[in-house]
């Protein structure tokens, strides 16, 4: 890449160049980096709330019977834990926070295609989040349906499902607008020389994700709108008494919510694909295969929704077809894993925190993915459906996958954004504690699920006590790791030592500009790209 450095007008880059005074520099800013940070801090806050709720759930399950909360409170708590973690943390997590922060820089753009729309998406996100929280304290009390809002219960419960449905609709709208903004940006604003095959894999993953956001999210919009209508005006499209079919709600719900798990995981895979070459000092193995597999996952992910419904009472033919299609999705995911491992092979590996988090992603995601195949096979699924095996599985892929990738992205890119470095030793210790706690917590869940413990109950038979206690102890270890990690990284980005432009030796565009990046990212001239994102030789790093 040609020399795109300019003398920064200030050491603090875009932090010093707000258009409006005080807080309005943030609340009215259309700069992609400021919007990215607005998302980032909100998402961190919601993650902390969601994690606290999760810890409370584990505490309730420390012993059989009622320990710290009643059955109804437990139902509301796991619903809230799910809604917050899914709609307010994992779905917007990497795309809205790190996508906004990094993607335009990676393609050599000064901002996204529609900056005002970008800010509007953030306001929609906040509005949806506030409504979701409001639904807890108004109406008939906090929703107790689980995050899936299945009818007929969700249509009948007296709790405040209607408001929660509105919140989900608005959050979906926010996600759609971010998606269409990103697709347009990646098509239209790539700088000179940034050909499709020179786009960093993180941006590629966001591109695939954004298409899912555009094409699948409207379906959850209409689904919750129909649920709202059923509750408020009695149009019982899912009500058997009015000729409706409750299973159609599940179809519509999963037509979005299964592709949505790829909205959650694809950007995480993109983060890992960007990190591994940098810390192996090797070009990414199978760049094109990873690109194609991202697009293949996006497409195949929209064919498999009904594998959540094997025991719902849908036809055996559908079970057969969707079970078969489900196995197809495993192929592109496995392609990625093999490519990451091949990139690491014979590389000069630097065991810095971003790589450690990325490696734990590979381990935990692979375990989660393989247990997903157990669930994808219809016969095995009938045995473990709605048990803690499922809970263990999706925490492995969602938390062990996307969560770890989110932390990897934090350790990789926050020094660039804030221009300061955290303590790498503490980050490594925190990582080790987290992985140990994680494995204890979720492996226990998988075993107890295999033994038949159903999910979504506040109580269990005494035979399951020891594994549940082990899981709860694991959750405490995990929490200690999380607190240490957050404390270290936040202390680092505010008080740590300044980093140079390129602390990790990356070859993509974001490492060629000052840290923190200046307003509009690049100097007077747009950058001209002359080599691929992982060509460390041509970038002069090797």
């Amino acid at each position, binding site marked *: 890449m040609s020399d795109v450095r300019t003398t920064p007008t200030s050491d603090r880059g875009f932090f010093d160049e707000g258009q409006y005074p005080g807080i309005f520099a943030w609340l009215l800013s259309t700069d992609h980096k400021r919007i990215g940070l607005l998302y980032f801090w909100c998402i961190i806050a919601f993650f902390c709330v969601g994690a606290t709720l999760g810890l409370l759930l584990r505490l309730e399950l420390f012993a059989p019977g009622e320990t710290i909360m009643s059955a109804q409170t437990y139902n509301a708590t796991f619903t809230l834990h799910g809604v917050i973690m899914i709609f307010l943390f994992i779905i917007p997590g990497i795309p809205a926070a790190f996508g906004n922060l990094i993607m335009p820089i990676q393609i050599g753009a000064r901002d996204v*295609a529609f900056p005002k729309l970008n800010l509007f998406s953030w306001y929609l996100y906040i509005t949806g989040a506030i409504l979701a929280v409001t639904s807890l304290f108004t109406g008939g009390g906090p929703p107790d349906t689980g995050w899936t809002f299945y009818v007929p219960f969700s249509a009948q419960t007296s709790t405040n499902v209607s408001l929660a449905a509105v919140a989900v609709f608005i959050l979906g709208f926010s996600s759609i607008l971010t998606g269409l903004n990103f697709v347009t940006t990646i098509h239209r604003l790539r700088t000179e020389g940034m050909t499709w095959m020179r786009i960093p894999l993180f941006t590629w993953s966001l591109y695939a994700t954004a298409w899912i956001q555009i*094409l699948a999210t409207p379906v959850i*919009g*209409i689904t919750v709108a*129909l649920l709202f209508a059923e509750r408020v005006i009695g*149009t019982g499209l899912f009500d058997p008494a009015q*000729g*409706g079919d409750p299973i159609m709600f599940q179809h519509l719900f999963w037509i979005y919510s299964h592709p949505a798990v790829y909205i959650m995981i694809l950007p995480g895979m993109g983060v890992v694909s960007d990190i591994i070459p940098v810390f192996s000092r090797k070009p990414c193995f199978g760049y094109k295969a990873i690109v194609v597999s991202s697009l293949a996952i996006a497409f195949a992910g929209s064919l498999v929704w009904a594998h959540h419904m094997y025991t719902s009472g849908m036809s055996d033919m559908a079970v057969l077809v969707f079970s078969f299609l489900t196995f197809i999705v495993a192929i592109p995911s496995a392609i990625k894993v093999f490519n990451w491992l091949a990139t690491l092979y014979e590389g000069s590996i630097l065991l810095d925190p971003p790589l450690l988090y990325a490696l734990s992603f590979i381990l935990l995601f692979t375990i989660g993915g393989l247990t997903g195949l157990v669930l994808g096979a219809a016969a095995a699924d009938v045995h473990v459906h709605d048990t803690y095996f499922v809970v263990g599985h999706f925490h492995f892929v969602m938390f062990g996958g996307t969560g770890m990738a989110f932390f990897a992205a934090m350790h990789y890119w926050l020094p660039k954004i804030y221009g300061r470095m955290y303590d790498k030793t503490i980050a490594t210790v925190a990582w080790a504690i987290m992985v140990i706690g994680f494995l204890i917590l979720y492996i226990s869940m998988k075993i107890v699920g295999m033994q038949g413990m159903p999910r979504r109950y506040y109580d269990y038979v005494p035979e399951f006590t020891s594994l549940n206690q082990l899981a709860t102890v694991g959750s405490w270890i995990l929490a200690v790791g999380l607190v240490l990690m957050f404390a270290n990284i936040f202390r680092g980005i505010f008080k740590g030592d300044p980093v140079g432009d390129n602390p990790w030796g990356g070859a993509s565009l974001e490492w060629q500009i000052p840290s923190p990046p200046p307003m509009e990212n690049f100097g007077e001239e747009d950058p001209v790209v002359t080599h691929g994102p992982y060509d460390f030789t041509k970038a002069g790093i090797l």
Partner: protein
Amino acid sequence: MSGHVHKDYTGAKFGMWLFLFTEVLLFGGLFLLYAVYLARYPQEFISAGKELNVWFGGGNTMVLLTSSLFVAISITALRRGAKTLCLRLLGSTIVCAAIFMVNKYFEWSAKISHGIYPGSDHMKEMQPGEMVFFNLYYLTTGLHGLHVIIGALVIAWAMILIKKDRVNADDWVILENAGLYWHLVDLIWIFVFPLYYLILH
């Protein structure tokens, strides 16, 4: 992008098309339910469909197609510098939207006065498939009607910008995108009309 002000027309239109896709998928959920329930209750859908008045539906189809023509021509007019003609055409489009909604109002009123509305006693005595048909009918035409209103507001907003010369013969992409939205409203209706009003007469 400061420094060199430049509008990316293709980008703006592409963004609008992406948004239209989301609208198609939103209505897609309702069409999906229609397809599934039609397969389950073919006879009841026919008997319930006979209750709908082809003249209301057909008339509204004409109105929307004509309004789409006005919008399409208005863009050509603006680009040829015929600002007054453009504004008149857009005004006519809004009048068409109003006619459509008034029609819809009378149609719904007639249904409701016959006791056909979600949750009514009369509906509860119907066959299950007929209840589904009418529930779907109200939700689909209701959501579509909402889009007609939003579309009319967007057109009105474009008219204001044209009056102020903020949208003009050299910079018309806002009108183009407003037009695209309006055509989408028409497109949805093109499918709603035969599916609900013409099913096996």
